[in-house]
């Protein structure tokens, strides 16, 4: 039985998983893993340009990566960013129901997000082409277009290995990690 999101137990278990992974894995981390998300969180929290651009921003943003079982993503992945007036309170992988309830959910297939993170696809362009879909108040996102662009730039500047670059053993390892996260944390 998975722990309930938002409880102290859940947070402690999530932090323990991140700590264990940061100690056991070497860089570059695999995109979408808890250790990669932690690296991304640190980048946002220390970025002066983001803080300035997002000083009026209020609300949570979720990057939703649609499932792609052949590379180990058996379920949709929700990367939840709790953002408030230039501060990034946290970035975590969360259960689907929590992810769907965020203020803004940007959804795309794995390949689209890979292109975004490889700086081959601009998020705004992706949304206008329908490659990425936004759920949430569009005018608010448009007003904060610089902050949104900076968030994406930062995701692209993390050192990372993409799941489709993994060999068969690596894909199985990723699948096992995400299964463990599902069993223990409901994500």
């Amino acid at each position, binding site marked *: 039985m998975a722990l309930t999101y938002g409880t102290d137990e859940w947070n402690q278990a999530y932090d323990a998983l991140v700590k264990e992974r940061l100690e056991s894995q070497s860089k570059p981390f695999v995109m979408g893993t808890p250790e990669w998300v932690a690296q991304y969180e640190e980048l946002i929290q220390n970025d002066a340009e983001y803080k300035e651009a997002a000083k009026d921003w209020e609300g949570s943003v979720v990057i939703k990566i649609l499932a792609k079982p052949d590379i180990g993503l058996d379920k949709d992945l929700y990367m939840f960013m709790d953002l408030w007036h230039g501060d990034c309170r946290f970035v975590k992988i969360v259960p689907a129901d929590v992810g769907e309830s965020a203020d803004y959910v940007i959804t795309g297939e794995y390949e689209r997000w890979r292109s975004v993170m490889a700086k081959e696809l601009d998020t705004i*362009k992706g949304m*206008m082409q329908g490659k990425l879909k936004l759920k949430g108040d569009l005018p608010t996102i448009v*007003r904060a277009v610089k902050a949104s662009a900076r968030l994406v730039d930062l995701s692209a500047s993390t050192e990372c290995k993409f799941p489709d670059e993994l060999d068969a053993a690596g894909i199985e390892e990723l699948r096992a990690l995400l299964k463990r996260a599902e069993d223990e944390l409901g994500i």
Partner: protein
Amino acid sequence: MVDVKLAPGADEVAMAVMLSDMLRANLEKPEKLKDFNKLKARVYINAKDAETEMTMLFDKGSLTVYGGKEGNPDISIITDAATLLDLANINIKMGMPYYFDETGMAVVKKLLKRELQIKGMFAHYFALNRLTKIMSLN
């Protein structure tokens, strides 16, 4: 409830849907609605980098959005996707678009560098002003 409708097929053009939604939200503000009710123009928008285009037919209080180029436009806006959103961030001061702050200057620079092309800018100056006010989120 403002009269903003998507022409058949426009719902398949993401940019048309996005901008329609944005306009609907904007038109809840009385000062925007006033300009909307006076605007009569056919506006074509082409986001070059996104390879997507749309046409908005404003007819004094109603708007029909087409996915693609439809008819002969009075105003054509050709630029990249991000600049289109910059246009939505232009500030309005004393009822007019304001080009002397950071956002406005960035738009003017893009115009001068031809990264933003607005055809019909002078022939339809008043319509363009109204359009800018309606599209602006500020």
